[in-house]
């Protein structure tokens, strides 16, 4: 049985109700369902005892709707046919600002405004609450017991500031336990308060949908109360290109919600709407976050409306949330297509606490890429302004950074050695050209004395003393073994592969630039020149080949 919204004693309300009923009578179900619904006798679920009136005194005035559905259809389209059960909690922050009859009048006007827009899609109850409920921002959850019969709870507060009346409010979705951030507005005159509160309610209201079918990239959703006509078509509508966040609700056998989990880093983008249904594209950090059907699990979606222009990104380590992650590079892109280069429009760095303030961009969804050095730690889509704080967990990058640093130092050393060796080889050739072959003194290990000797033998000895391939291989091994062991013990397979790859590349680099064969070749050449020099004492030595 449909509830008669508004006061049935009021002729105006009766007229409104009659209009709703007429509209409902004309209502057509979505195309795919049209055949099935053509013969439906409208018989609203007889849960009138659970419905609340919009005011306390109208609680008992329930009437059945004249249009009836078949019970099968009603079961199937229960979600689309059920109106939102809405509780509006009103609180006057400033003492004696609005009292008594004024407050009652304000409540009535607010109900009237809401009803004029929401029509039968909302079953609204307005209550005036005391200050205690407003003391904590987590008040929604504390009042869970009294709120369980509602789908949405709006908390509206009226206060006074220098410019007039300050109105603040937030919305709480009871099944998913999700609360919007608080918004506030100011009106100058008292007569605008009710109207502005209604507008605020509309702005805060997040329509709810249920995920019907889902595959990897696309899902179809059904809109709550989507089959109920609404006087204001924008009130309960989800326009194309808007976004939704998703939640998994786990029910028990008694159909009571036992667990709620937000599907992280996942958004639905509305591609096409038709009546109470909509086709969406999945934007997620995961491959198929909504695929798969489980018993007694329902996937709900809430329209995501950013109420702020900024969000704080807080990056934490997965295994050690207390210690700060330090500076990480955070790059932002408007879109991301796997396998294609990403065009970053912002390159930021987190502060010492691992936080970064993100500002709203042109496109609502932004892809965040978190890097530690060259390693990508996370790539997630976010909607800036939807939440005050976006918390992102990343794997521990300590080992990876340590490897990066050590390999970098080895590389620097390698470049120096290669440069030095090149110079020495050139020097050997020059000295050979001048016929200064010389002989190294016995027992001279090629230290300072050898360095000062200006002949081929001395310089050759210096070249031999330079660190070679084996020396570098040992250094790389000293980096690889402990790092791989640490990553394996942490169960980070990706890190193990990455470290092995980096070390292999470095080994290849060493082999390429410190090839011992070149040195042997040079030694042979020197021997050759020496022989020529010995044989032709009078002749100038042959010019060494380049």
């Amino acid at each position: 049985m449909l509830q008669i919204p508004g006061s049935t004693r009021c002729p105006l309300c009766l007229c409104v109700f009659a209009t709703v009923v007429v509209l409902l009578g004309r209502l057509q179900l979505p195309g795919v369902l049209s055949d099935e619904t053509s013969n439906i006798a409208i018989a609203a679920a007889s849960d009138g005892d659970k419905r609340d009136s919009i005011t306390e005194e109208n609680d008992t005035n329930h009437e059945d709707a004249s249009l009836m559905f078949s019970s099968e259809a009603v079961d199937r389209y229960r979600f689309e046919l059920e109106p939102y059960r809405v509780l509006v909690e009103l609180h006057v922050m400033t003492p004696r600002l609005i009292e008594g009859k004024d407050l009652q009048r304000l409540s009535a006007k607010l109900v009237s405004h809401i009803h004029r827009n929401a029509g039968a899609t909302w079953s609204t109850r307005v209550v005036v609450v005391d200050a205690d409920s407003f003391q904590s921002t987590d008040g929604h959850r504390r009042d869970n017991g009294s709120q369980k019969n509602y789908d949405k709870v709006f908390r509206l507060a009226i206060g006074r500031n220098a410019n007039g009346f300050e109105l603040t409010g937030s919305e709480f979705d009871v099944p998913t336990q999700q609360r919007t951030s608080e918004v506030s507005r100011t009106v100058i005159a008292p007569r605008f308060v009710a109207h502005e509160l209604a507008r605020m309610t509309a702005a805060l209201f997040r329509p709810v949908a249920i995920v019907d079918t889902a595959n990897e990239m696309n899902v179809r959703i059904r809109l709550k109360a989507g089959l109920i006509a609404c006087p204001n078509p924008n009130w309960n509508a989800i326009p194309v290109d808007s976004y939704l966040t998703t939640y998994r609700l786990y029910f028990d056998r008694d159909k009571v919600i036992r667990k709620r989990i937000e599907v992280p880093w996942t958004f639905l983008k509305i591609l096409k709407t038709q009546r109470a249904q909509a086709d969406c594209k999945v934007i997620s950090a995961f491959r198929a976050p909504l695929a798969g059907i489980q018993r007694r699990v329902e996937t709900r979606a809430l329209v995501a409306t950013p109420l702020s222009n900024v969000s704080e990104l807080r990056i934490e380590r997965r295994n050690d949330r207390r210690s700060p992650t330090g500076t990480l590079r955070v790059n932002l892109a408007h879109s991301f297509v796997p396998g294609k280069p990403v065009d970053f429009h912002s390159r930021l760095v987190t502060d010492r606490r691992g936080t970064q303030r993100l500002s709203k961009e042109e496109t609502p969804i932004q892809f965040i890429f978190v890097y530690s050095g060259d390693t990508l730690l996370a790539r997630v889509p976010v909607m800036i302004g939807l939440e005050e704080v976006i918390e992102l967990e990343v794997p521990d990058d300590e080992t990876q950074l340590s490897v990066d640093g050590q390999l970098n130092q080895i590389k620097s050393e390698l470049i120096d050695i290669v440069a030095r060796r090149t110079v020495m080889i050139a020097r050997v050739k020059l000295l050979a050209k001048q016929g200064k072959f010389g002989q190294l003194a016995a027992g001279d290990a090629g230290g300072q004395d050898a360095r000062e000797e200006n002949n081929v033998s001395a310089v050759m000895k210096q070249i031999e003393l330079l660190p070679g391939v084996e020396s570098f291989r040992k250094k790389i091994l000293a980096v690889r073994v402990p790092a791989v062991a640490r990553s394996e013990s942490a169960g980070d397979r990706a890190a193990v592969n990455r470290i092995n790859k980096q070390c292999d590349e470095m080994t290849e680099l060493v082999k390429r630039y410190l090839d011992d064969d070149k040195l042997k070749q040079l030694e042979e050449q020197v021997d050759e020149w020496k022989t020529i020099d010995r044989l032709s004492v009078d002749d100038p030595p042959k010019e060494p080949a380049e």
Partner: protein
Amino acid sequence: MTSFIRVVLTWLLFMSATAGMGTISVAVAQTNDETRPAQQDSTAEESSAGETEDQPPLLEELSTPKAEELLKVRPFDWMVLKNGRVIIVEPIKPRPNRLEWIEALLFNHNDIKKKGEERDAGDDDQEPFDLAKWREKRLTYEYFDIVLYDETGEAEETEFRIQRKYVEKFIHFEDHLLNETSRLTKAGDLRTAYELLVFLTRRDTQRIKDAKKTLPKIAVDEEKPFPWDKPWPGLEIARNDLLLADVATLRKAGRYEEAFLRIEDLHQSDAVVPGLSRLAGLVANEFIARVDTAGDFRQARFFIDRLDKLYPGHRISEKWKSQYRQRAETLRTEGLKKFSGADYSAGATKLNDAYRVWPTLPGLAVEYRRVATRYQVLRSGVLSLPNGGANEPHGSYPFEQTSSWRRRKLVSRPLLHVSYYRDGSPRYRSSYLEDWVPRDLGRELRFLLRNERDSWESRPIITTADVLQAFMPALKSGEAFDERLELFINEIRPLSPTEFAITLARVPARPEALFRVDLAKPSDPDDESDEQHRGSFASFRGERVGNDHLVYTRLFPEPEQLLEYHVAEIQERRYRSYNEMIRGFNRNEVDYLPRIQVPDVKKFREDERVFVQPYALPASHFLQFRPDSPYFKLPAVRRAMRYAMDRQSLLEKEFLGVDDLTSEAERNAIRRANLGRVVTAPFASTLLGYNALVRSTRYEIGTATALVFVDRERIQEIGRPLKLVCPNDVVFLRAAGKIVESWQRVGLNAELVIANPKKAESKLETQETVEWDVAYRVHRLEDPVYDFVSLLAMKPNPSSEDLRYLPSWIVRELQKLELVSDIQESQEQLRRVHEIVAKEAILISLWELDEFAVFRRNIRGFPQQLVHPYDGIDTWVIQPNLAAGEF
């Protein structure tokens, strides 16, 4: 020409032969246009002997040789014959007045003959008079030995003799010089005239010296020598004329000091110069008037003394003396009046002025001492001054310069500051805190503020509210936000007006380093009231007085009736050069030199008039890259730059002055003194965190060249030279120039950019900075564990964003350095960071130099080791330096 001379010589020979007097010779005459014999036209030789054009020129035909000729040609004399013709000969000796001397000799000789004949007639026992011998000797007086010049201008080997009776007179080379000098003096070409005069004087000195050698011989022979050891006749007159002309010119040009020097020279000469006293008075008067206007009374007094020495009781000197005495008296009276009215600053200034004007005024010294003891002024000699203002620009140099650092340290008032170093670690103290106690294992710190102030302290008594207000800007977003402080501080809790607690989110290794919050720094530079309020927390306030003076005044004067007072005012005087500054110190213009160069340390240490105090930390010299410079992104080039520099050699040559020392022993001594060292870190090697195991890069020009070659393509892509910016200091600039040269040697296109403070001063608003890639920096990191990150980020309160130019793994190591909570671990981590930064050439460390300040012995109360130039200035005592001429 030559043929004619030979004809003349033949004729003279014939005449001599007939007279029985042997052979004679004749010199070569020259015409006006043939000054040098070497330049004679060879065709003249072919002309016939009887031709008139080949005869020596007449004296009238010859013109006086010009200065240019006289200075170039070989010296010559004109021998004027009786017939009016002139023969040019090599200068005859001895001279001048050769003819007159011979006349005198002949007179004597005739007298000898007469006496001999008389004696022969009267006394037979004596040896008879030898007439033949007499005649032979007389004959020698009849001739001149002369040397002619040949065609090449060289003296001929054959020496000729000419009979005296044919010679009318000699015009000597010196006479030509004198004539030309006089002519030039009259013409106003004093420079050339001086040149000739110097030439003549040198030549005359040599002549006198030669004459003194030969004179005794002549004297013995001739019994009546001629006075050849006297200066050339007319030389002194010419000199005096020239000096007088020069005085007139210099006076006209306003170069009074030089003009007076000439007058002193004239005064010393034997000749009486008429009107010299008047001229001296005029010059002195004009000069004194000028320096008087400029306030340079020292110079004025010096000139008065000089004039007095020349002409005691001169009218001009007496006039100025009287004027200065009167002025000093007036200033003294005014000063004492101010002083008795407790306006010590004005009183001391007046007395100081009086002392500057006329220090010998009776009784002034005693009063000056009394006032200077009550209101003590430290006079400090510096090479640069900050540009002024709280947010002063540092010229076009992108970093804080020494002058600004000096000012910041003097003006700022941190809650905690480094007081001294022990065992290689900084130790902190606070003038505001009675105590600070860690609680809850260091997670909470309780601070107890001092609610009283010592008489000598120049600081306000602050409350908890003031401290909280100083902390707030650092903890809330804005320009002064300190990300690091925000990370550590959880809560600041006021407990009472004099007590507050800080709860820390994490425990730092040395919490004191975190709380070096400057209480005197305004949170909002645009907020005047805040600036005034914060300014009241400073100990001294600076005010620019003219271009070369900066005066800092104590903000909290000391109370009355104290037994001892301390520095009330600091006067920084800027000198244009280091040498001028040292001269100023030696002239007592300043009492304190905040920094002297290393080569002068030994000299000052040996000077008993001064104390030489070392600074607690040496100054680290290093090169820092601009983060967004394309050259910084080339690691091989960074290392090449390091390999290309011979740092040890540069240090010794440019800073230790080893090259200026002559002996090897001195060089070794200065090396052993170890006042400068090549280092690998941008902080003091004496600190614990310095990693001694990091080896200094060798000077390897070959490796450097090869490394530049590695990145040659990317260097070409940059398409502009690498620019090294350097502070405007002569020594630093010289070193930086050498560094650039060494880079150029390895194929790196580099240039030196000079940061010009004058340019910045004229553009205070725009603060135009120069484009640069690498900066030559001189810095002193007080606590490297905390300051190293700031140094790399180039900001006092670095954010993570400021470090993003560094690789992530280095940033992580820097973060560990900040977050480590154990002192030993922090030192370990600092050593690790030092190693990384050195190996990766993030900075290129050059060397460190021990720094020294010089105090005159009338200053006391300064610390044994200075952390900064005005360390503990509140406690310094300046005794009046009565030897001080002036400031």
